[in-house]
């Protein structure tokens, strides 16, 4: 197990280093932030001074090394716009994005797995065909359009749920989140469901496929021959087997939930990292963009590692192999 962990740790470090180069040089190609930042009426001397102040007069390689040195001590540079450290700006917005992503993850599990199970156990029924048709819609409709439709229907026409902002927050166990207030919950409904839609469809399809395969396995027939109740056969014998691929995919998709929240946050004016990123891109606030991308990369790497560990807990065969290593 430990050899496996060390190997994975080095792989992760290499991935993060490679990504830092791609991100840094990529952002430098996009455009010159000085044009956006400086008053059009400023004279050449002011422009020169600003460029020097931002460190943009140095050769790009030197800037990169300086940037790497900064990362090592947790400094991603200061935002050109806000003057605050970029990392701090992002971390301030992170809880809002995290709670949105967790709410979406929760929805995709509690909606996706039961519907997928049902569709897998009764593939011929009309309800199952409806579920599968729905999941195709979930896959193919663009997120931003569904988000807008949801606002029109539930916020504008019916007036049931608020369409913008995060609502009231409360602090519980040291975490400040809108999940702990009724007002916050009503605010998170629409964006969380919007963000979860794609994942619900994915989980339905995975669960259904796993179920269809597992019900014909001998161990299910043997469990029936033992006279177990349907509840135990489905809830333990079947579910534990199909959860293995589902957990893997859900885990890996959690990173993309955070990354994809950019669109949802923009539509629902959710004050998270995604909205900050879009705003920063519009004004070419390089340190914030780079810091955001680096955090997302680190997150993906960490999630991959966590999934491997959970996977080994679920599947005893994986566990054995690691012990042997």
């Amino acid at each position, binding site marked *: 197990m430990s050899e496996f962990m060390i190997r994975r740790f080095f792989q992760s470090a290499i991935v993060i280093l490679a990504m830092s180069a791609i991100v840094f040089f990529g952002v430098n190609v996009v455009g010159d932030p000085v044009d956006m930042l400086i008053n059009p009426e400023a004279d050449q001397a002011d422009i020169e001074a600003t460029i020097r102040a931002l460190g943009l007069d140095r050769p790009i390689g030197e800037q990169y090394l300086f940037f790497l040195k900064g990362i090592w001590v947790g400094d991603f540079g200061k935002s050109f716009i806000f003057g605050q450290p970029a990392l701090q700006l992002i971390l301030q917005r992170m809880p809002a994005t995290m709670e949105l992503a967790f709410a979406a993850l929760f929805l995709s599990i509690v909606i996706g797995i039961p519907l997928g199970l049902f569709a897998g156990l009764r593939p011929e029924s009309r309800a199952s065909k409806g579920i599968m048709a729905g999941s195709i819609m979930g896959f193919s409709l663009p997120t931003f359009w569904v988000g807008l439709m949801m606002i029109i229907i539930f916020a504008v026409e019916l007036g049931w749920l608020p369409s913008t902002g995060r609502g009231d927050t409360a602090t519980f166990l040291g975490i400040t989140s809108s999940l702990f207030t009724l007002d916050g919950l009503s605010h998170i409904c629409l964006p969380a469901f919007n963000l979860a839609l794609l994942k619900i469809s994915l989980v339905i399809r995975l669960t259904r496929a796993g179920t269809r395969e597992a019900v014909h*396995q*001998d*161990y299910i*027939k*043997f*469990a*029936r*021959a*033992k*006279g*177990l*109740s349907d509840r*135990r056969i489905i809830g*333990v*014998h079947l579910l*534990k*087997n199909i959860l*293995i691929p589902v957990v893997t995919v859900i885990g890996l998709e959690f990173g993309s939930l955070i990354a994809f929240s950019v669109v949802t946050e923009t539509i629902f004016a959710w004050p998270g990292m995604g909205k900050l990123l879009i705003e920063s891109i519009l004004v070419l606030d390089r340190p914030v963009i780079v810091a955001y991308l680096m955090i997302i990369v680190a997150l993906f790497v960490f999630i991959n590692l966590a999934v491997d560990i959970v996977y080994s807990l*679920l*599947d*005893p*065969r994986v566990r*054995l192999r690691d012990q042997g290593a």
Partner: protein
Amino acid sequence: MTAVDDTMEMVEGQRSGEDAPTLVVENLKTHFFTRVGAVKAVDDVSFTVRAGEILGLAGESGSGKSITGFSILGLIDPPGRVVSGAIRFKGEDLVTASPERLRGLRGNRIAMIFQDPMMTLNPVLRVDTQMIEAIQAHRKMDRKAARQRAYDALEMVGIPSPGERLNAYPHQLSGGMRQRVAIAIAFLNEPDLIIADEPTTALDVTIQAQILHEAQALCKRTGTAMIWITHDLAVVAGLADRIAVMYAGRIVETGETDDVIDKPLHPYSVGLLGSVPSANKRGERLNQIPGMTPSLIGLPPGCAFKARCPRASELCNTTPDVSELIPGRKIRCHHPHLEEAAQ
């Protein structure tokens, strides 16, 4: 232990009919309704099994022997269905029994052992979990007592250090060990009937012999009736009390094992036995039955074996009835090998 004693007493009470068969199958028909037509997997099958008796149900693959087993347990899934006939288990008809009643009997009074031990145990659950749940599904017993019972069952089927095996996952056990675990699970609730569906086919010959011997000893000791499904006549020859030979969904011949092996009456049994290698046929070419097992879809009327049978005649276009030409031997044939049997 009182729970066990009670069940034993109950069993004794029900057996008061003295030799009343544990299982009576009468004219069972199980068909599968597919798009290309009805597959008559089991077509008019009748047999009985008594307490402590081992019935060998022999036949080629596709002859309907496994489907017969699953029909008894009520485990036929659509598009299959038991079309007609009766399955009387200690007097109770299982064909008309409610699903809940069948669930209560399965694994409790009627147990089954499957063919492939690598596939029958759930790969993600520990052996003890899979054994304890089989007990708790049928009786109120706390985990500790159930675990002890599982331990005893593993010991009974000859598994060394059962305590360790209980904590193991199936993939940590060999094929032979896994099949022993499956057999131990079958015996857990001291059933009246065990249906063993080719349980030794996937194992090496040495392990096979051990398991056959153990299964036989256990049946005799516990008074459990057993149906041993196999395609290998050599296996049942040394194991079963009686043999039923199946062909294309029908039982073509039944009788005491020695009688059927020594003097088969049905041309199919004769052909089947002729194709088994043995010491006194050394150096000779093995006989084989010409042709192939017929497709069960759109089977022409009459005897299903007629196309491959050396004795077939016009008469064979009508389905032969079951007749008892010699006491204790039932046969479904117009031209049985009576002359050899008379010698």
